[in-house]
């Protein structure tokens, strides 16, 4: 973190753009909650309200040629990486216009053209693939980085261990972004992690790491830029730990019986990344409202777009099984 402070602050214009993006994601996720409750959305949905700064800070630091893999909590990552809200919403409605053509759903959002290699419904499931993508970049001498998102809970699975270990051993250009929101579903970190400081995980591989305040988009952006630079310059992979907060249930509809009510209320007060950025930028109510109107409009449009989308033919299910 020391190095980060030496870096120049981001231009305010960029931060305002981040603000807009974060608010768009927030409104999108709220709409998803609403439409799910209205019974319109099939399947299993996880929103990332509270974690928008990680999605935006990380994805905006990526170059277009870089690739990433996401998790079950993927809407924010996907939007921040550039998938149009229409395509994302259409996917959640199971439409042909969706970013996975209706085959994937919320936990399987792909947008390969934009370097999104897919969300993953298996915890840790996307990590080895990112090592492999990074290996391909290295073998071909391409100036690209592969980046994986995953949660604190994912650091307990063998896939995590093997992937980070292999990445470090082979020195591939990969960045591992841990979104530490202190919960794995209903299980608090104290019940699933034997250590308090997750940066210690990287020690086992001799991998360089940084911890950053995941509610501060500027800090996340800066740390990601450094991590990418590290990887890009041939110094091997990097472990980026983002401390963040899930300000909602694990899944949409989660009654959160396991979570102290006051924790949630307190965090919403103190740890909302959008509030923080608003304050940092000193935005007026009018300014915020204007942005809000714009992004809310985009989200509304995406719902219209999705509802008017095309249902696949049942028999289309037989397509895409094999190339």
């Amino acid at each position, binding site marked *: 973190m020391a190095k980060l402070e030496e870096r120049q602050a981001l231009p305010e214009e960029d931060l305002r753009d981040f603000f807009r993006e974060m608010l768009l994601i927030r409104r999108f996720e709220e709409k998803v909650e609403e439409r799910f409750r209205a019974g319109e959305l099939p399947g299993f949905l996880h929103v990332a309200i509270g974690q928008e700064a990680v999605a935006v800070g990380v994805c905006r630091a990526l170059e277009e040629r870089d690739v990433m893999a996401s998790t079950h909590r993927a809407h924010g990552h996907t939007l921040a990486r550039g998938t149009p809200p229409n395509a994302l919403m259409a996917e959640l409605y199971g439409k042909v216009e969706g970013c996975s053509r209706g085959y994937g759903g919320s936990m399987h959002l792909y947008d390969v053209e934009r370097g999104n290699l897919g969300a993953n*419904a298996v915890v840790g499931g996307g990590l080895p693939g990112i090592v492999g993508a990074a290996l391909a970049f290295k073998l071909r001498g391409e100036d690209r980085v592969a980046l994986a998102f995953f949660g604190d809970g994912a650091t307990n699975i063998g896939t995590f261990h093997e992937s980070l270990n292999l990445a470090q051993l082979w020195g591939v250009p990969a960045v591992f972004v841990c979104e530490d929101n202190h919960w794995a579903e209903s299980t608090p970190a104290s019940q699933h992690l034997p250590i308090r400081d997750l940066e210690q995980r990287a020690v086992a591989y001799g991998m360089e790491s940084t911890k950053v305040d995941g509610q501060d988009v500027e800090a996340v952006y800066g740390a990601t830029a450094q991590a990418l630079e590290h990887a890009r310059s041939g110094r091997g992979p990097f472990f980026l730990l983002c401390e963040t907060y899930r300000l909602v249930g694990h899944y949409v509809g989660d009654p959160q019986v396991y979570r102290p009510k006051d924790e949630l209320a307190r965090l919403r007060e103190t740890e909302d990344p959008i509030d923080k950025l608003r304050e940092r930028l000193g935005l007026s109510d009018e300014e915020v409202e204007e942005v809000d109107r714009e992004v809310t409009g985009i989200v509304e449009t995406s719902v219209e777009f999705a509802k008017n989308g095309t249902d696949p033919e049942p028999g289309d299910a037989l397509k895409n099984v094999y190339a």
Partner: protein
Amino acid sequence: MPELSYREAVRDALATAMRRDDEVFVMGEDIAEMGGSMGVTQGMLDEFGPERVRNTPISEMALVGAGIGAAMQGMRPVVEVMYEDFLTLACEQIVNQAAKHRYMSGGQVKVPLTVRTQGGAGWSPGAQHAQQLEAWFVHVPGLKVVFASTPADVRGLLYTSIYDDNPVVFFEHRTLYGIKEEVPDELEPIELGKARVHREGEDVTVVATGRLVHEALRAAEEAEGEGVSVEVVDPRTLQPLDEETLVASVKKTNRCVVAHEAVTRMGFGAEVAAVLQHQAFDWLDAPIERVGARFTPLPFAPVMEEWVVPHAADVLEAIRRTVGRNGH
């Protein structure tokens, strides 16, 4: 007789065993405060405490393996694997360790472990949260495999599985947790390896498992309206398999349909068909029809998902195909 939901029946089997016996404990992801992702273990933390209702990290392999180790010390752990898709992470321990310790040691140890899991389509979870993989474990000597389709069955079979001295992979079906059935006042263990004849009939036998038992019963009723008398048999235990009951039924009806939600190719129905064509060859008046999911990963869009997995209509169609054949 009280009525229990499938969910309550699973819970009752677990709780009954845990009350009877300190050696039984459960572990799995989110089974404590949250009561499990299907709500099966709700309330159990309060009754049994966190040592016996163990919330765990996301470590499917080590969980199953820890269950093996505790079982080898004479305990009777029940490990919940949240979705059967995640069995793929624990296969090494299930297949190479649990199934083989007894054998490799020449009989020195027992592994009385139960691995409970669930899956099944019908709610658009996509390709990684609804596979049906029971067939894999039927191929592994040393394992027992159970797939329960009703509240009474799941209660009695799970209890027996916990007290079985062998590793049991126990399959539940996601869409069945809400269904209800009258069950005995006192839990009655159900012997593994015994099929349940849900409905007697004369013209065709439908062998079905899991959700398809209910689809088969629906199809059977419709078929009855068409003048076809259908026998519906649920093997319940896939390994050991009650070949006797299946063969006897087919020798009576001379026709057979096998139905499950898993993809047809290399599904459990293949084994049933292979056994029956062998043991009831001279009795069969028509080829055995198989009903299962089409050969694709599960698609997300509901219209596609609905079309991929089989329903009563598919069973009915298969019944019609087989009774439409002339005998030989």
